[in-house]
């Protein structure tokens, strides 16, 4: 038997259901422009009809429908698409950050214009040319001094700009790690809330939307993947490690790393291990700071230290018009004070290392001469190309001196070799490949045969006992010493700080420009005032193959610098455009699936409105019918 009031109940169910549907439509309409909002659809379904085959089933045609109910409110969302978007967003963020900073680095160089370091250096060499033509005049000395100072300022400015960019990157890393940490915590909290709601049987659509938005934001910071196959445990991974596991959050820590000039490492809070970022803006920032900017600063330092050394080499041999000699033109401030290169690396009060930058042999060699010796030289190298940081470079009897030098320079070791102006073999340290090693320090020099010992006159002994090692003080004792007839092997001490940031024109020369060397000695006497040979030789450094790190001439160095940074910029701009397009296509697709279309919602609204009206009408009809029974029958 039907209940009397089942009609009203049916109508009531209809009204409530349509009301809820209208509410959801209204929710969609008002949230049309909300970020990360996915439209929600109400699923109406017929309630369970009566009667099931049961004992109290009435004997009449059944089953009679009992009205409508809201089965669930679901959001229209493609989760697989979300996964793709997270990856694409990490990519786009990586390239966007990289592009932004590389553009800044490009602008530091000020090429191809007239106020670049290259231009200042051209003018510097030009000043020496002028001095060589008019060595008697004070004006040409002043010009050399002014241009030298301008060059030093230009190099220092470039260093400071690169350093400043590096500091900015460091700040941004810290800021982004903080943001990432708060996002991670929020996601974990949301997870807890969502599982609670789901346990009660509801669809936490808006919470899910919010969590998806937070995950999107997190994907901008680092490369993540998401796993929500287990409904109770929503996980976020990076590089295989959990960041969020259900309600457990694993945030990051920032630790200053003394081996890396005090810049921070990002570590896991729970076990202190370093995090490997491969995408997102944190990945880009760490790569920029520790690779790209480091390389640029190293290249700048290499140019500065080599130019300083080359000019000083000639300048020390030259004489000023005041008869003074033996002065450096460029110095580094502050200098490493110990003349033997001894240095206290671990700051415990005793010398424990030797910081030697360059060693020269005592003997004049001829490039084309066959050496007639065989053996193996052991040179310092990065630990990624040589075991234990020592690279073996062999030489054979039929090699010429030129061959051996070329082999050393092409070996990938952290040294370069050349013959200096007196024909002596000169071995100079380059920037270190490993981040933990200092730049411009000769870490190891050993020869199993006689090339470096007797032939070139650098080391005193062959083999292991005669090796020059940097991890002990007074390593320069391994060099060939002075004898009665000739001087010992010459060496130069390594710069302690970045040469490009701390170089300056020798204050003694600034005070007295007459000390700028222009002449060479003749038969042991200072050169004449009209002798400009030293100035001419310094000027010829400009276009000689003097070996600036891996480049041959200064022209090569500047061209390589421009090409290197320009190509990085070109690549990042291209990659950014591509990744932006990809991301846009994916987000457009997501918009297409989950976005609100106002016309559609309005049409739905009309539909539900009619439904509501119909249900209301039905109720009033049933009400009238009941009224007939209750009030009109048998009165």
């Amino acid at each position, binding site marked *: 038997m039907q209940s009397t009031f089942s009609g009203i109940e049916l109508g009531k169910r209809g009204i409530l259901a349509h009301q809820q549907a209208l509410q959801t439509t209204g929710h969609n309409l008002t949230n049309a422009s909300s970020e990360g909002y996915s439209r929600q659809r109400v699923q109406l379904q017929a309630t369970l009809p009566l009667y099931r085959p049961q004992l109290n089933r009435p004997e009449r045609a059944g089953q009679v429908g009992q009205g409508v109910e809201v089965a669930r409110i679901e959001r229209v969302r493609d989760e697989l698409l979300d996964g793709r978007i997270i990856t694409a967003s990490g990519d786009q963020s990586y390239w966007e950050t990289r592009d932004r900073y590389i553009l800044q680095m*490009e602008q530091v160089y000020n090429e191809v214009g007239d106020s670049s370091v290259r231009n200042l250096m051209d003018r510097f060499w030009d000043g020496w040319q002028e001095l060589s033509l008019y060595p008697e005049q004070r004006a040409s000395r002043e010009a050399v001094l002014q241009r030298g100072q301008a060059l030093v300022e230009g190099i220092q400015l470039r260093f400071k700009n690169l350093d400043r960019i590096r500091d900015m990157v460091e700040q941004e890393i810290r800021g982004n790690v903080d943001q990432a940490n708060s996002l991670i915590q929020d996601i974990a909290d949301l997870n807890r809330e969502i599982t609670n709601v789901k346990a009660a049987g509801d669809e936490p659509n808006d919470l899910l939307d919010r969590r998806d938005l937070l995950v999107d934001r997190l994907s901008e910071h680092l490369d993540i993947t998401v796993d929500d196959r287990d409904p109770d445990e929503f996980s976020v991974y990076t590089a295989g490690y959990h960041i969020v596991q259900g309600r457990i959050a694993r945030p990051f820590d920032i630790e200053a790393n003394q081996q890396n000039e005090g810049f921070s490492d990002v570590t896991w809070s729970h076990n202190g291990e370093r995090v490997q970022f491969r995408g997102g803006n944190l990945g880009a920032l760490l790569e920029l700071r520790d690779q790209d900017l480091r390389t640029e600063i190293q290249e700048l330092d290499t140019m500065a230290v080599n130019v300083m050394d080359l000019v000083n080499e000639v300048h020390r041999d030259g004489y000023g018009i005041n008869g003074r000699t033996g002065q450096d033109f460029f110095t580094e401030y502050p200098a490493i004070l110990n003349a033997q290169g001894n240095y206290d690396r671990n700051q415990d009060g005793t010398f424990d290392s030797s910081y030697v930058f360059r060693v020269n042999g005592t003997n004049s060699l001829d490039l084309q001469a066959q050496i007639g010796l065989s053996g193996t030289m052991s040179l310092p190298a990065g630990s990624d190309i040589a075991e234990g940081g020592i690279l073996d470079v062999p030489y054979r009897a039929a090699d010429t001196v030129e061959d051996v030098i070329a082999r050393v320079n092409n070996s990938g070791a952290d040294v370069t070799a050349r013959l200096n102006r007196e024909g002596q073999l000169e071995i100079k340290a380059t920037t270190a490949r490993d981040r933990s090693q200092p730049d411009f320090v000769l870490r190891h020099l050993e020869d199993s045969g006689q090339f470096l010992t007797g032939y070139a006159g650098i080391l005193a002994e062959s083999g292991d006992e005669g090796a020059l090692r940097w991890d002990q003080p007074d390593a320069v004792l391994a060099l060939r010493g002075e004898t009665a007839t000739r001087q010992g092997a010459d060496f130069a001490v390594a710069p302690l700080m970045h040469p490009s940031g701390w170089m300056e024109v020798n204050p003694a020369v600034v005070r007295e420009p007459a000390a700028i060397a222009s002449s060479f000695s*003749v038969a042991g006497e200072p050169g004449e005032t*009209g002798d400009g040979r030293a100035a001419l030789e310094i000027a010829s450094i400009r276009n000689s193959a003097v070996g600036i790190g891996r480049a041959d001439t200064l022209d090569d160095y500047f061209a390589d610098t421009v090409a290197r940074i320009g190509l990085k910029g070109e690549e990042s701009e291209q990659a950014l455009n591509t990744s932006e397009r990809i991301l846009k296509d994916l987000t457009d697709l997501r918009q297409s699936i989950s976005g609100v279309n106002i016309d559609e919602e309005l049409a739905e609204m009309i539909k539900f409105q009619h439904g509501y009206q119909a249900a209301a009408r039905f109720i009033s009809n049933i009400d009238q019918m009941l009224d007939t029974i209750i009030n009109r029958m048998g009165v």
Partner: protein
Amino acid sequence: MDRISTNLPNDNMQFFLRERQKMMEQAQNQIASQSRIQNLRDDPLAASHATRYRSYTARLERYSDNIQTVQERNRIAEGRVQEATDLLQRARELAVQGAHGTYAPEDLEHMAVEVEQIIEQMVEIANSRGSDGTTIFAGDRSQQLPFRALRGMRAGGEQEMVTEVQYRGTINPQSAEVGENSYIQTNFMGNQVFWAENQRIQSRTDAGDYQVNQDGSFSIDGVEIEVREGDNAYSIIQKINESGAAVRARLDPVYNSMVVESTTPHQVWMQDQPGSTVLQDLGLINGGDGRAPENIAPSARRSGGSVFDALINLRDQLAAGDQEAVGGRGIQAMDQSLDNMLTTLGRIGAVNARLEGAFERTEMEIPEVIAQDSRNTDVDLAEAVMELRQLESTHRAALGVSARIIQPTLLDFLR
């Protein structure tokens, strides 16, 4: 995409608008700065080439400058040498006249006085300064006068006359860079230009058993020659002859001693390097702190003099009335002096001709390199303006279309 959400047309319009504005700004910047390369990324390889072009252009301009400086110095020196040549011609005329035998002793005396004037003038020319105030013929001792005239009373004369002219300059060559790694000498040595005869320095010390007792070196005319322990006179002679200095060494058959002769007329400078006494032991120079050219050993004989020596001798011969000497040695010395001066003139002329060629080449190369650089980095104005126009018109079209796409919704049509 089948379904278009309401925000999509809006977002798209913004996206493409942003892109087009970026392109328009880039085109504008290119036109305003005339350069295709605003940032290095716009064309990294072209930017890299451009740095080389610019540096090379700066170097070429310096070479061009240097060439002109050297040419100027050469022209001034040439002028002086020309004046000196004219003076020598006059002196030669006087010598020829004096050798005639048709003049009385008083006339010869007058000629001697004129030769004295020529000597004074010649010293002035030799000590002349260039346009920057430095002396021309002093080697690199360019702030001092190269020649010093010693005066004294001549027997039978009434006033002081020049008795000797000493060279006080140096022999270091100075160079200027006039092309990539190509140098040219810029200075002149007075003791080459103003020299008349080949000089010979003959030692009187027997060098037959001589052996060098320790490694060392000495320099002749500024060229350093190394000797090893145990070298004897013959090996020293060979080293000198192969050294590249403009001298020849040999053993004198009479005294068995070293003789050093110049191969072109100039003053020979010899010096032992510190720590070595080879030349001293061979009896060519004396020990102590003596500097060339005054350090010749008293026992050695030196012959072959400068233009001044020739003129002084001529004057003395004329004053003494020695017509045979005038006609013989006097004219010969004048001829030799003239010969050397003309050689110098010829050399300067040849160098300047070579520099002229180098200058033209450099001046042609500079605009070529600038043109290459321009092709590389400058923007093609016509093309850029057209592109900007095109962007502007598409921009307007896009804006117009966007305005229509932001269409009315259903709301406008419901009651």
